[in-house]
């Protein structure tokens, strides 16, 4: 059995996390300086710096040049069971601004039908939205609702509720398969999200099925890495 399983930088980063929680630091609050933290924990400044680095990497804190370290705004928590897309800003708690990018009726081409596991030329509605937090675009969502789920869907109705809610109003939602991958922004995504092309993005893809096993909604979201986390609750 080894004695030092945990290295000092990891241990310290956890201690600082506890401190942030216990002393009720809020997002945007300034942390004590490196020197003060080193004194407080009785370690070298270099050690504190590597602990702070770990916290910068997982976005617990942010650094402001020539100012210090601040508690990060926090991430928007996306439950794996909730497709309402009622996103609230982790900074202000207010609902995010949602811009409607596009609504169109189309036939699924080969690529899309392959992704949706539906026959080619299936008639679908494509609904695209952009979510912004205090003016900063943070998420693009493209949702595809087959016409057989919601015949005669109009633009107004399409933007009145989330695609999953629209589907749920017509059919019984039973199952969802989701996947999260790392991708690099293409021209369109980087433009919409004000990033340089090739910036890393989190892609959240999902297929939602009704109780007969038929596809109800297919969606793809492109999200800023540091703004979102996914949670799955234990069923106790």
């Amino acid at each position, binding site marked *: *059995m*080894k*004695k*030092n*399983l*945990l290295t000092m930088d990891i*241990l310290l980063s*956890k*201690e600082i*996390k*506890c401190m942030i929680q216990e002393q009720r630091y809020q997002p945007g609050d300034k942390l004590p300086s490196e020197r003060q933290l080193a004194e407080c924990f009785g370690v070298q400044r270099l050690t504190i710096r590597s602990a702070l*680095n*770990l916290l*910068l*990497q*997982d*976005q617990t804190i942010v650094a402001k040049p020539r100012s210090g370290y601040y508690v990060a705004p926090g*991430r928007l928590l996306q439950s*794996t*069971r909730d497709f309402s897309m009622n996103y609230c800003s982790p900074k202000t708690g207010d609902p995010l601004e949602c811009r409607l990018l596009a609504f169109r009726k189309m036939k699924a081409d*080969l690529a899309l*039908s*392959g*992704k949706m*596991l539906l*026959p*080619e030329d299936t008639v679908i509605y494509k609904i695209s939205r952009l979510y912004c937090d205090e003016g900063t675009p943070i998420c693009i969502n493209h949702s595809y609702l087959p016409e057989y789920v919601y015949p005669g869907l109009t633009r107004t109705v399409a933007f009145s509720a989330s695609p999953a809610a629209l589907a749920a109003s017509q059919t019984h*939602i*039973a*199952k*969802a*398969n*989701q*996947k*999260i*991958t*790392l991708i690099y922004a293409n021209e369109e995504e980087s433009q919409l999200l004000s990033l340089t092309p090739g910036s*890393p993005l*989190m892609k959240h893809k999902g*297929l939602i099925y009704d109780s007969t096993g038929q596809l109800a909604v297919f969606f793809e979201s492109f999200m800023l*890495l540091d703004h*979102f*986390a*996914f*949670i*799955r*609750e*234990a*069923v*106790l």
Partner: protein
Amino acid sequence: MNENERIAAHIRETIINRIATHEYLPGEIIPSERDLAAMYHVSRPAIRAAIDELVNQRYLVRIQGKGTLVRKPDHNKVALGVLNEAKNASFTSLVRNFGIEISNKLLGTGLISGRKYYAQKLGLSPDDSIYGLHRIRLGNREPLALEFTYVPFQYFPDIDEYNFERISLYDYMSSKGHLPVNFQETMMMIEAGDKLRNYLQLNEDETIVNYIEIIGYDKNGTLVEYTENYSRPDKLEVRFVTDYN
């Protein structure tokens, strides 16, 4: 590509997707050629060509008198054990390519006590002993994930006598009556520091890793596991299945 080849390629892609999303489970009989032909409005020869190809690629296997089945992964080539084998398994990091042999490399094990953070995560008091297990999960001997697991020592007093390079941690926990079956998980993507990049053998320009924090409860609702898992996004993908019943 002629029309028939194009249709066969599309059918193939669709079936692979259904296997990948666990719509067709390993060992499950897929619909007959006739049913598939009707389902996709294509000819039976096109379906047969698609299935032949998938049999060749070892996605499917034909069994005389039974039908066409989704091939079961070999026992030591299953999904990385970051997670349970329980049904409806939550966030599951799956090895992207089938047929990868999983092994573990032990980085360190040991007792921790007096560490508030870990005690809180496990719902223990700061003086309770916690056993930590740090491992690298390898696929074909290449690092896939770095995994730090912590368990309450009181439930696993002989844990240090086992070698978890060879034994499955969950098999061991199960033998003690504390197999985690219920999970609360948080998944995000974070920046990887130098140390982490070294462990996972990431290149200079690969700076992002998947991070999953797992709290596991046994069948009695006792908190028995806290795990931090860092994985390579190019080798592992995070999937989850949700049932609304």
